[in-house]
């Protein structure tokens, strides 16, 4: 049985633009993966087409079947985590093993206050 896990430092999920995101990826795999990487992405959710962009990625080299690696990446200036009636922008971090696409992911927020900006409340969190 395989397992992939992500843990963010201090279990933090609220970040400010430009801040460093740090964490640990650990896994227990039954087969050696071709690639294993942590990706920082945002995606839209709502009424329209789903957009997704992978903003940063950290690839791990020479991985063992059971391993544990720290990672760190600087968060971009935007877009902020926002939600309105029509669209939300949701940030996430995922650990993905290929082939197979097995993954673990965590949702985070990025904004000046660290809270999701609510467009339906005049920009207040």
């Amino acid at each position: 049985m395989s397992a992939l896990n992500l843990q963010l430092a201090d279990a933090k999920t609220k970040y400010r633009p430009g801040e460093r995101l740090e964490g640990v990826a650990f896994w227990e795999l039954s087969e050696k993966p071709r690639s294993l990487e942590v990706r920082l992405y945002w995606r839209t959710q709502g009424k329209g087409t789903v957009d997704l962009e992978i903003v940063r990625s950290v690839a791990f080299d020479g991985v063992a079947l059971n391993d544990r690696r720290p990672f760190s990446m600087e968060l971009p200036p935007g877009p902020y985590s926002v939600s309105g009636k029509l669209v939300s922008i949701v940030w996430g971090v995922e650990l993905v093993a290929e082939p197979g696409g097995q993954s673990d992911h965590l949702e985070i927020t990025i904004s000046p206050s660290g809270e999701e900006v609510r467009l339906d409340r005049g920009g207040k969190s």
Partner: protein
Amino acid sequence: MRARDNPFRSERVLSLRYRLGGNWDALLARFERLGRRAAVVGPHGSGKTTLLEDLAPRLREAGFTTRPLRLDTETPRFEPGFLDRFFASLGPRDLILFDGAEQLGALAWHRFERRARAAAGLLVTQHRPGRLPTLVETSTTPELLETLVAQILGDAAELRPTLPALFERHQGNLRDALRELYDRYAAVSI
């Protein structure tokens, strides 16, 4: 309600799969009998695109390489030179899945269809029958709308009384009916 919490957000609606009346093997066998050149025919919002998407992995399992093409009212034609590159790259096991073939005018369709004979197959979606033999006709019912709503919400009891009128208002276009439900939920203040 936040867009991300709306049960009718597009990622949820797109996760609904086509509910085929018969079985997939029979449909694939019919496609073979039609010489692998056929059309999925049905009105707007009746599941043609979903059916095409759901057929793709089954065709790949059968040993074909699926080559998707899509036109719609927002993108009604291919960019200049695109089809030349597309047809030049076709392999002998490539099967073209063309969603929105009705966007091509008669002459453009005639050219396209002739060039597509080099492919292992051609499956298109269109609103009316005629250009290729019909593989399957997609249709909708108020009961199907209720089934899909129940699948999204877990239970359609609260909305059930309103669904027949919703179905009628959108003339059976389930995509538009589900979008209206999105708007209803979006209006809820949470």
